[in-house]
């Protein structure tokens, strides 16, 4: 059968869809990790103020807050760390760490992920 340019185009387009669809589905499935959220400037942006000496790619961290290291020793109770991230001003009114949970900067699930990530530092 001799193919017309139109059918050839349609075949190619079809092939493109077959190829492209699984890729898109993969990206949708790829969830943001706690580290992604902590590094993202429009999400946790933890790096703006905190260095993470144990993380290889903590590029140009800020120094407004204490470095995030030995977190399990500093926060034996993980809940205390979560509360700090949710609203640091509750335990220290002078703190100017943005209240990630109280002001809905991050969702509860995102906070859980960040807490897991930070707790491992």
């Amino acid at each position, binding site marked *: 059968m001799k193919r017309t340019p139109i059918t050839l185009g349609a075949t190619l387009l079809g092939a493109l869809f077959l190829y492209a669809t699984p890729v898109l589905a993969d990206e949708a499935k790829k969830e943001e990790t706690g580290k992604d959220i902590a590094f993202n400037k429009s999400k946790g942006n933890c790096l703006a103020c905190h260095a993470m000496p144990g993380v290889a790619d903590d590029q140009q961290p*800020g120094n407004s807050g204490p470095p995030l290291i030995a977190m399990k020793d500093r926060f034996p109770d993980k809940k205390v760390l979560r509360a700090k991230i949710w609203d640091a001003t509750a335990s220290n009114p002078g703190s100017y760490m*943005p209240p990630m949970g109280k002001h809905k900067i991050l969702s509860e699930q995102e906070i859980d992920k960040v807490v897991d990530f930070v707790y491992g530092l």
Partner: protein
Amino acid sequence: MKKLLLTLVGAGALLGAVYASASPEDDRVATVNYYKHKFPDVKFKDYIYGSLALDADAKAQYDSIMEFPPFETVVEQGKKMWETPFKNGKKYADCFANGGKGAAAMYPMFDDKKGEVVIFDEALNACRVANGEQPYDVGDAKTMGVLLSYARTLSDGYKVNTKINGAAAVAAYEDGKKTFYSRAGQLNFSCANCHQVDAGVRLRSELLSPHLGHTTHWPVFRGGDNLVTLQNRYVGCHKTVRHVPDKPGSVRYKNLEYFESYISNGLEMHASVFRK
């Protein structure tokens, strides 16, 4: 009863003393001393350079850029605006003493008749209106910004000379001070958190500037070509902390400029400069 009265009078005197101790001039002196203690190596006159005063490498880079500022043509354009007569033949220079030299250093000032702070931007607009022209939008960088980029250089080398006289003027200053120290936005920052307590601290690679001297050098050219006026910068600050910004020239922003200017009294003006 007499004892109670005496106690009350005593308390009143004490309150008066506390209030007096928080006068604008006392705030200014306390601020200068605060920074003297915080950055003992930084000279008072260098606070006009913002965070550059705290970073010798960045200051050296700034100095080399300022030898041939990439934004010179914009300031030239502002000069042309300043010198071009209005339809009635008068010029901006006719609206100010000394042809506008040193004028910007006197602003913001409190206008008792209006009952509010007037910023230099508005004084330029008042000059336009008095001469039959339409005022510019205070937030418009292409008109007001360009005009300011030259008009403010006429005060280069003059010292900031903000005056606060009378209860209404003090109230405007206090309102600006309140804005400076109040938390704002989803991120819950006050101006003071970053630009007083954390001055000299880095947020990622950005060094935070001290608020002393904040008003001395506007407009700035960020990245060499993006003209930003002080009023537009306040909009940017509010957006950064995710607070709904005012329009440039709002009473709140004017009072904030009044507060920051008074605190910067005695520093030299140096307008139209490069910033990262």
